[in-house]
């Protein structure tokens, strides 16, 4: 953001414009480009997900041969066509729904996902705002989404939607704890909540061969990475933790009554959240934009490449999970969180503290 404003002030024909206006312009530009990123991310990810699921199940997935009404070669245009379809679909609001909440819910959910992108560093320079409380901000903002889910479930006036919303609330609140606790291990090692500080702290080599990413830093952070990632998957309500939208039990869970554009916002939010979890795992444990071979391929362009590569790999892992594991039962879900993840996270924190003391 500061960099963009600085660039603007250097351009001569913009010098006459008051700085407040420039600020608004820059903010709009960033917001629009982030929105484009989220939308493109969703379109590409949906296509990838359908293809990956198809190949894992020995199917072909979206396909199209020839021209005309077919969806392009290998079905490449399938999700574009789906997006257009969603845009032009009728906007249905159930007559007994709570109109205001029903309309508001998808936007709250989407904003909760969208606003987090402000704090995510894509490489050395592409970062909207490097807060002092970066990690804290992201954790706090990504929890806004659950309000949208609960409003959607409550406002739909539908028992499936309400069940889904209640499950989602229980699930997100429980998994927030191991998530934050395993995140603390990293913060203990870095001593800062700033995103760029965390990434810069992962520069160099460890044990002589491995990059000094926190996942390799010590056994406790290694476990913490998995707890963080799995809790993250649980937070974005993806299979095997998709109880809020369990198709086989709740039709579509909290978004049963939604269709068309409003439903598309739920979808955008889901895929944006997936990207956030993948990006956060990459930043906190896999070195963000740091290259795996320190000192080589370290330019900002490569930084973007490494960061996106790690994030996309983790998104792939999430899809891999989804098409491999069956859904957990509610009690199993809670058991996993409170009986396994939580104690292990506490031990992790203790272990990281001792490790840090012992080494330094």
């Amino acid at each position: 953001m500061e960099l963009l404003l600085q660039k603007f002030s250097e351009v001569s024909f913009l010098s006459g414009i008051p700085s407040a206006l420039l600020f608004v312009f820059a903010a709009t530009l960033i917001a629009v480009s982030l929105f484009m990123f989220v939308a493109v991310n969703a379109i590409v990810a949906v296509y990838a997900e359908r293809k990956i699921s198809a190949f894992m199940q020995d199917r072909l997935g979206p396909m199209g041969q020839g021209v005309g009404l077919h969806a392009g070669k290998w079905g490449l245009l399938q999700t574009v066509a789906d997006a257009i379809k969603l845009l032009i679909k009728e906007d249905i609001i159930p007559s007994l729904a709570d109109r205001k909440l029903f309309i508001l819910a998808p936007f709250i959910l989407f904003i909760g996902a969208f606003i987090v992108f402000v704090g995510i560093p894509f490489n050395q320079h592409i970062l909207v705002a490097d807060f002092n409380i970066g990690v804290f901000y992201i954790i706090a903002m990504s929890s806004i989404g659950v309000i949208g889910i609960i409003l959607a479930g409550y406002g739909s006036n539908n028992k499936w939607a309400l069940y889904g919303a209640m499950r989602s609330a229980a699930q997100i609140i429980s998994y927030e704890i191991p998530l934050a606790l395993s995140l603390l291990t990293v913060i203990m090692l870095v001593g800062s909540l700033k995103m760029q500080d965390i990434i810069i702290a992962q520069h160099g080599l460890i044990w002589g061969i491995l990059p000094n990413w926190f996942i390799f830093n010590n056994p406790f952070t290694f476990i913490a990475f998995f707890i963080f990632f799995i809790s993250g998957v649980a937070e974005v309500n993806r299979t095997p933790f998709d109880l809020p939208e369990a198709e086989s039990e709740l039709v579509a869970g909290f978004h049963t009554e939604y269709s068309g554009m409003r439903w598309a916002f739920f979808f955008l939010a889901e895929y944006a959240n997936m990207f956030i979890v993948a990006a956060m795992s990459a930043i906190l444990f896999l070195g963000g934009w740091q290259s795996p071979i320190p000192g080589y391929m370290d330019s900002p362009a490569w930084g973007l490449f490494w960061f996106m590569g790690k994030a996309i790999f983790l998104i792939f892992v999430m899809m891999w999970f989804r098409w491999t594991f069956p859904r957990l039962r509610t009690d199993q879900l809670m058991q996993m969180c409170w009986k396994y993840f939580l104690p292990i996270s506490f031990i992790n924190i203790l272990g990281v503290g001792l490790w840090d003391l012992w080494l330094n």
Partner: protein
Amino acid sequence: MIRYFSNIWQSITTLLIGLRITLVHLAKARKGIVTLQYPEERWPRPERNIGFSHDSYNVIRSRLHVDIDDCIGCLKCVRACPVDCIHIKTVKVEKGTDILEANHIGITSNGTQKRLLLTRFDIDMSECCYCNLCVYPCPEDCIFMTGGPNSSKQEIDYEFSEYNRSDLIYRFAKVPKDQVEKYTPPPKEKVKIDVAG
């Protein structure tokens, strides 16, 4: 306590087994795909084998086809059909002569001289029950199911879907539209019987 750790161990190992299976399927995606891109690809048709050695025994039940140039309009097929889905109209014409304007050929490929001109030969395939009964009585062997032993005469067609049900009525008569009127005989006048006398 042992149970606790064995639970963790067991879940990790079993999850890894699951992940391995799906990854193997993903990696082998080129080989094992079972989807058939239907309009472009089809399953191979099984060979006709019903245990009879009759080669001419036409058991393919695909779609009826009529070689209208060979049809003499004898209506045997109409009478055989149990669901009355064949509709034929004929007019008497000069025996064995071609009528070019009505696309009528006077002599069949068997050498039979035709006495009748077919102004209408419709088969409603949406009513047809594929019983094949119309095929046997035909003296000229000109009504048959496509494909199978007849594939030299007509390629097999077993997927003749249409958007409109009326498009399933196959019209085989070749008399041009503007000539139909000319070859339709005037309706017979009803003979009035004066009951009162």
